[in-house]
């Protein structure tokens, strides 16, 4: 039985509860107060001490080329919270006259996505690890055994999603464990537990996939035609992702590769090409040594 995450980015409100819950449960150190200067995202990326990362993509209305896979649908007929007021906020003085009018900021839409290790079916990190420290555990998750890892760092460039990283003061590689310890005790992972909108849902993958397909169809029926699933039902080299996503923009906008490739698919051909060159050069050298000087 494999468990995983379905992260529905249309439900994400960017509260970062998952980031905090993960840090707290796993006792991960803080990353300092660096400001990235980009959107609301000061976490910036997944790292050895950040196993959940909420990406914030601000799409202003005025932006010419949206990072959308398909054009955004026209605004829904559903009345918004402010009763459809598009002029902004009026501040009235004591006589009831408008004294100040504040326009709404130019926010077309927010795309937020809680990124995490994908626990790939064909995991580049797992196949690359020379010590066998990275294993697939009984819950279908890709798990780094901290007592085995010797910090060679080969898993780091072998992950097609840039997830796993070396912790510099410790030397070993760390990433999301899919809350191995909590799952052992029959609890759902801390991030999914903390998510207030159930944007992150945890469960059996078959259930999750069914729910996700249903959700896409439902969103399309409602007119949100840019919704699609990333990481399941696709022919990619990494196979289905145990943590998959419902996205609205093209994968690149979220920093995800469009068709992730499994690095180890190149091993066989690499050796073949290398040994072919070795054979040619050896035969040539043999002829040189056999020849009369």
């Amino acid at each position, binding site marked *: 039985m494999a468990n995983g995450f379905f992260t529905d980015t249309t439900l994400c409100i960017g509260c970062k509860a998952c980031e905090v819950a993960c840090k707290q449960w796993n006792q991960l150190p803080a990353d300092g107060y*660096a*400001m*990235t200067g980009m959107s609301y*995202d000061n976490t*910036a*990326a997944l790292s050895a001490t950040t196993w959940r990362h909420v990406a914030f993509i601000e799409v202003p209305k005025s932006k010419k080329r949206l990072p959308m896979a398909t054009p955004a649908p026209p605004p829904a007929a559903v009345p918004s919270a402010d009763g459809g007021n598009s002029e902004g906020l009026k501040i009235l003085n004591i006589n009831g006259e408008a004294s100040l009018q504040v326009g709404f900021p130019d926010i077309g839409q927010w795309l937020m996505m809680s990124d995490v290790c994908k626990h790939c079916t064909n995991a580049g990190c797992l196949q690359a690890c*020379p*010590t066998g420290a990275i294993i697939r555990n009984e819950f279908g998750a890709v798990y780094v055994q901290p007592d*085995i*890892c*010797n910090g060679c*760092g*080969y898993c780091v*460039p*072998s*992950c*097609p999603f*840039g*997830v796993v990283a*070396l912790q*510099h003061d*410790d*030397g*070993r590689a760390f990433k999301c464990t899919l809350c191995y310890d909590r799952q052992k005790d*029959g609890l*759902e992972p801390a991030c999914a537990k903390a998510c207030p909108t*159930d944007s992150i849902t945890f*469960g059996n993958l078959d*259930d999750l996939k069914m*729910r996700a397909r*249903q959700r896409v*169809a439902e969103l*399309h*029926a409602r007119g949100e*035609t840019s919704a*699609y699933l990333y990481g399941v*039902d*696709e*022919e*990619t080299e990494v196979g289905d992702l145990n943590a998959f996503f419902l996205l609205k923009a093209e994968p*690149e*906008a979220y*920093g995800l590769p*469009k*068709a992730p490739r499994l*690095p*180890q698919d190149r*091993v066989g*051909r*690499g*050796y*073949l*090409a*290398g040994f072919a*060159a*070795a054979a040619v*050069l050896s035969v*040539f*050298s043999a002829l*040189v040594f056999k020849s009369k000087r």
Partner: protein
Amino acid sequence: MPGLFSSIITGLSLLPASYEPPGMEKRGGRRKRRGRSVETEFASYYNRPVIKKPHWVWPIWTYFWAGGIAGGASAIATLAHLLGDKEADVSIVRAGRYIGMVGVIVSPVLLIIDLQRPERFHHMLRVLKLRSPLNTGTWILTSLGVLSGLNFARQVVEDGIIPEGSFLGKLALLSSNNATQLLQGVDGLALGTYTGVLLSATAVPLWANANESIAPLFLSSAMSTGAAAISLGRAVGGVEVENLHRLDPIERMAIISELSCLAYGYSKLTPEVRRHVTDGPNARSFLIAIGLGMLGPLLLQLLGPKKGLAGRLTSLLTSLMVLTGGFFLRYATIVAGKESTDDPDACHSITRGPGRASPEEQAQRYSTGHDKPFEAGRSIPEARPNSFEAAVSFEMNAPSSTAGSKPEDQTS
């Protein structure tokens, strides 16, 4: 004083220009993202890197270089031993065995230095994984160490450093023969190859994109640097000049092979990845590798003198040039690869391909076969104590034949 210092630092850090968010720094002070030279229709996430770069620094490229020399020298010494002239080529075998021994002593040290937990080096040898080049390579290096040691011991005895009659001498002669030498040669070729496979089997855009050309490139470079090291050893060791140019054809052939691998690999790069080879300081390193390590020695060997003191000096010079060029080849390949990981355009340029259905296709895939309309909110799970319990209870009709690729998931 500390207070003053920290307030100066704090003040400086508040200056707008002083802050560079991580990952968006200027690239070595040269190319500030002056727009994309190649027009892509893809966005990126605020120009953040898509994948993470390896931490590898000088121990790794030095190891690739030293390991390559050891591997090439082992292979050439083996061929000379098995096929070469029994008198004239002994000096090649001798030099090859000595160089191989030095190489396999230096290489593991460099490899262990590079580990962030060096005391756990032996964990590499607790499994055998053919899909992991680093694991396979550690086994190759270990076995090459043993084999080189055996053949080196025989050489030491043959050179009379340890008397043949002594216990150690007898042991050394007993424990090595033509078979161990043959195995050392094959292992040496494997060592030269695997370093290239190690690089191409990553997600790093440059290495992944150059794909199957890096392994033969590094193997050829191992052969040319191995031959150069042997020639250098012989030139210094006072082999007569007529005999000194024995390995030149091998060196030339290896260099030609290197050049063809470079050209083939370069032709396969996408424009976004190619930038990291042709721009900036890495371009200079690649040029040094090609000019000093390949074209220069090639010309010098073809046009240079072959006799007398000038011949000896030419041989020395070409060997040094090939060795330096080989080092720069490893350095440039690794550094340019590391730099290409910071470039989201380069990452995306090699992961386009097929493999993702458009939203419309997906909508069609998931919505066909539903005869009843969707009820809004049904798919959002109700409050549940624990998502271990199946939160889904709705029925889903079997998809039509045009539907997704995994029908078995939906019928369960």
